């Protein structure tokens, strides 16, 4: 029943992350929330991986490693964008950024 | 040399203009004369290959695919670069080359606003690639690619060099045709999946009929019908045509009328009917009905026009009605008539649009009410207009007759199993159409050419036909007369192919 607790932890982290992504106006905070979501997923993957025996056990960890790498890259690009937005607008308020309005 | 051309002649004929267009891309925009020369040379070279094809074509076996090539192209879907010509495609291929050359010659000092010969001529060349390619393609995907290739240059021609409402007309033309193409490609795919995992036309002709159930075939034919009928255009899918023609520059109108409309009818003869003969059989009475409605309707539309160019555009609806009536009979006589009608309409209506363009150049209007006395101010232009009007109304001895009368003749005796009474009714209605044709054409001629010049233009000095116009027009006028007197020149090429393809239906 260990896995339940891992999954609950993941779910809690995920919900916090979603809240952060949707509700916060600060771009940096939104990026951090995205990290939370990704890490929630990582926890889930590790938990599922641990359930398995044999060679399959490693799969979850491999995926988690990939996600960590991608997340690092993503944060790098994201922060760069936020920085540029800040330079242009002297604000990182995402509700003001609507260049894609159709 | 001959061996080389045997293998590569058709490919050259299709892609030489593209080479020309590429060369033009690297020449700076300002050097207009170089552009004109490059364009002319590349069309002439392509035409020269065409002449070689004409001389080396085996007329005794015109039902066989000649100068054929089949190379692998898109292997995943088993689509091949399969090209070749037989007696049905040869005349149209030659017509397409011939018209493009004349259009380039005519363009010499007739560039519409906003000028830019480089872009204009390059588009013309790309257009020729598409047209030539459509007539040689023996693979459905290849056909589709070429068929669609002509859309873009024409879209830009209308949209950039067109008249007042060019954008509306260009978009209408584009969307209308694209809509048909969408259904057409669906049908192509259906043919592929149901008909034997091949896009090869000759193979499909062999196997598709046996593999596809009648109901499915009816639907597939319906899709093909939409694709081709819009291009023809048949009533009631014709409304893009008058707008496109009216707004297009002269050269665009000429190509549109002379070649582009033929892509639709060619599709019927080359693809839809031979591959799905039984479905065609079921559809034919409806096609014939729409064709005769188109004949009368187009003529009535013409009578209501006040604009010279729009009138000629509407007359295309009527003339293509005759072509479609010939096709709908599904008999060799009717199909021969249709092919003849296509070539004749290409020459005659192409000429009429040339004249309309020249009138517009001189008077800056095409409103029939404001014109008049053309014969006084520019007698040669006026008589050429009269000649073409006579050819267009189907006067025996000129090419138009052989598209019209044999279509009427064939409607008396459609292919076995179709309602004779129905087609004979079509025959009579189509005959009435010939009188209406005389009506609108002569009425137009009387008001533009007869009488004295209106006060508005009385003092203008109007140039009669000049050099490039003579060069561009003389071959077409000669073609109209020669084909009118010696229809055998064309029918001898088409008949064996038509007999081979259609006598089994």
């Amino acid at each position, binding site marked *: 029943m260990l896995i339940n607790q891992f999954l609950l932890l993941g779910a809690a982290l995920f919900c916090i992350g979603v809240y952060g992504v949707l509700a916060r106006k600060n771009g940096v905070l939104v990026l951090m929330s995205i990290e939370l979501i990704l890490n929630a997923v990582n926890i889930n993957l590790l938990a599922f991986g641990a359930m398995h025996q044999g060679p399959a056990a490693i799969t979850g960890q491999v995926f988690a490693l990939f996600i960590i790498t991608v997340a690092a890259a993503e944060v790098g690009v994201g922060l760069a964008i936020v920085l540029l937005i800040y330079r242009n607008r002297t604000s990182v308020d995402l509700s003001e*950024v609507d*260049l894609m309005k159709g | 040399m001959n061996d080389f051309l045997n293998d590569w002649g058709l490919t050259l004929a299709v892609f030489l203009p593209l080479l020309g267009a590429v060369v033009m891309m690297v020449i700076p925009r300002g050097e207009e004369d170089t552009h004109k020369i490059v364009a002319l040379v590349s069309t002439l070279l392509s035409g020269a290959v065409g002449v070689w094809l004409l001389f080396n074509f085996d007329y005794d076996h015109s039902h066989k695919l000649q100068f054929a090539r089949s190379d692998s192209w898109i292997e995943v879907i088993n689509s091949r670069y399969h090209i070749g010509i037989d007696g049905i495609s040869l005349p149209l291929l030659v017509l397409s080359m011939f018209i493009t050359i004349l259009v380039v010659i005519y363009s010499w000092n007739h560039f519409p606003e906003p000028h830019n010969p480089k872009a204009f001529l390059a588009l013309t060349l790309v257009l020729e690639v598409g047209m030539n390619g459509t007539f040689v393609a023996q693979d459905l995907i290849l056909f589709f690619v070429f068929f669609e290739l002509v859309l873009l240059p024409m879209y830009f021609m209308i949209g950039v060099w067109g008249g007042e409402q060019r954008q509306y007309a260009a978009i209408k033309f584009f969307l209308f045709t694209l809509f048909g193409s969408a259904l057409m490609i669906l049908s192509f795919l259906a043919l592929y999946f149901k008909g034997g995992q091949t896009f090869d036309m000759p193979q499909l002709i062999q196997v598709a009929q046996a593999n596809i159930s009648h109901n499915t075939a009816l639907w597939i034919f319906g899709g093909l019908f939409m694709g081709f009928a819009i291009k023809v255009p048949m009533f009631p899918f014709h409304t893009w045509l008058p707008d496109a023609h009216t707004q297009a520059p002269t050269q665009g109108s000429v190509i549109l009328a002379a070649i582009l409309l033929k892509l639709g009818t060619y599709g019927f003869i080359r693809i839809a009917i031979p591959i799905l003969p039984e479905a065609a059989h079921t559809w034919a009475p409806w096609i014939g009905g729409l064709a005769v409605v188109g004949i009368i309707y187009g003529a009535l539309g013409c009578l209501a026009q006040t604009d010279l160019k729009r009138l000629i555009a509407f007359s295309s609806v009527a003339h293509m009605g005759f072509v479609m009536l010939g096709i709908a009979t599904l008999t060799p006589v009717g199909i021969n008539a249709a092919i003849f009608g296509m070539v004749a309409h290409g020459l005659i209506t192409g000429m009429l649009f040339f004249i309309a363009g020249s009138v517009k150049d001189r008077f800056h209007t095409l409103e029939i009410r404001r014109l008049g006395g053309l014969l006084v101010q520019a007698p040669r232009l006026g008589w050429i207009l009269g000649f073409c009007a006579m050819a267009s109304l189907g*006067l025996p001895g000129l090419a138009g007759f052989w598209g019209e009368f044999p279509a009427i003749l064939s409607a008396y005796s459609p292919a076995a199993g179709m309602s004779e009474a129905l087609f004979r009714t079509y*025959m009579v209605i189509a*005959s009435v159409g*010939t009188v209406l044709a005389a009506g609108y054409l002569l009425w137009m001629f009387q008001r533009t050419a007869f009488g*004295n010049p209106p006060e508005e233009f009385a003092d203008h000095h109007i140039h009669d036909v000049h050099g490039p116009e003579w060069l561009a027009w003389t071959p077409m006028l000669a073609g109209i007369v020669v084909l009118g007197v010696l229809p055998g020149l064309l029918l001898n090429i088409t008949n064996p192919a038509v007999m081979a393809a259609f006598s089994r239906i």
Partner: protein
Amino acid sequence: MLEHAWVIPAITFTSFWLILFFGRRLPKGGSEIGILAVGSTLVLSCVMVAQWVGRAKTLAVGHGEEIEHIRGPVDNTVRWFTSGQFRVRVGTHVDGLTVVMLFTVALISFLVHVFSTNYMEGDRRFTHYFASLSLFTTGMYVLVTASTTLAALFGWELMGLCSFMLIGHWWEEKPNSNAALKAFFTTRTGDIGLLVGISILFWAAGGTFDIAKINQAALSGQISHTVLVVAACALLAAVIGKSAQFPLHTWLPDAMAGPTPVSALIHAATMVVAGVYLLARVYGVFWVGFHIPDGGFNFVAAVGATTIVIAAVLAFVQRDIKKVLAYSTISQLGYMVMALGVGAWTAAIFHLFTHAMFKALLFLGSGSVSHSVHSFDMVDDMGGLRKPMPKTFATFMVGSLALAGLFPLAGFWSKDEILLGAGENGYKVFMIVGLVGAFMTAMYMTRCVYLTFFGEYRGHGHPHESPLPILGPLYVLTVFSVGAGLLNAPFTHEWFGKLIENETFFHAGVATHDFSVPDALISTVVVLAAIGIGYLLFFQGKLPRGVTARQPLARVGYTFLANRYYLDHIYTGGVVGGISGPIARAAYWFNQNVLDGIVNGVAIVAKKFADWQYKYIDQGAIDGTVNGSGHGAEGLGGFFRTIQTGRVQQYGALLFGATALLALALVLTV
């Protein structure tokens, strides 16, 4: 030469192009080429007549024991094209009918050419005029030498084109171009029938355009009667249009807008007789289709008979000398069509031949008159011209009497044969109509001659006799108008008839009749009576409204008439006073307003309908649907656009919301 009949149209066709391209640079404006070309075809056609006469009679025709030997036709055809399994040939078919027609056309055309050199001198388009004449003549040559219906159609339409060009020769003036258009449309309307008829016969005769085979198939019963009736009706429509029969005759009087020599050519030898020729050529179809040998009544004869009367009546009320002649032509064409309808084939062709001579004479004569007085109005600008123009007067008199059918001039013989044929073949009613027509013809020509040549000169200036190029053709035609009739007279043993009667004629078994003196007497008396009454009416100016009681001369004439027609004094009182007065005017009114009105009305309604259709159906409904689908797509896009706020977080919210809903759905359903 009989095998090479194609040379004849080829010569004039070449001449057309030569005149068109080089005519302007020649001293005589191209007329010399035209005259040379037509002159040589005249010589060649004479050679052909001679060769035909000298041809051995080798072809056996007839039924059972009545085998007769005639001269076989000469065919010369080549492969033209192949369509489907049908091999279509083109070429010439020469028999007696062909050579006679060739001669007639060549002669009239030649004289018209000569006449025109002077008449059209200084014209704005002298060269064009001669080019068109050459092409026109080519058209008729093609028609009469054609071995197939398809080739005949070529000649037929070529003439339509040329008549359009020549009637509208002075196209700067609107009425002229209107007349040209009207001629083309009206004949083209009839041509619907020709296209349909040719198509039907092509399939019915087993895939051939060959006229001889079509005739054979029709006569041998190979083609079902229903098909033949439809085909015959269709072809009759073409004849009605081209030969200006009732009710499609209205274009012909308007066609007078063209130059006078053209009228002579159109009326005498080409164009309008093309219809009659076609009827005679594919006679087998009509013969069987309309039951011609059965007698009583048939459609062809009825059309002809109606036309005779309708047109003759109209000729009374014309002021324009050319219009009198135009209506007279319609009426005479009615005779020919009626003759074919009643089975008098030979008589019809013979009448075509003689009529060509005297009608050309009359038209050229009227041209000579107008050349002198510069007008065609008999009432206002002519009168008393016999003194200044004695030669024109004399020739015109001969032409008029020949047209009236007075013994022994050309018209007498041919008209008499038609009436005889109608009577003997069981078409008595039509014989009477023919007599009435003859009566009226004589009378309106009397009026015409009176108004033009007698009384006081009412015009301006000083009329003068025309020069030789104009008078020459008149003299030649005068000779033919006097002598042509004798070619088929009893004392020449019906030489003309023997010459033209062809295979179809014998195969069908068309009846021939010997000259009958009583019938000839009756028609002569009718004509003399008409001239007499005409004399009283017009020369003496005495109308029969009660004046006969006081005027002895009029009373004599009246009594004379009443004695010949003892059955009906109502006829003399009513017809003479009535026809030339109110009835004719009413008929003319009907013609101009109702018939012409219908033609114009149909055009207007068609135009209105076309406008309506264009405006509401094409631009409204059909185009509306097209544009509507565009607008629909645009509206939908506008709605979706509002969701597109550009805020990333809102997109995220939507994404999560949607995922959550989907997850919920998954949980609930699985």
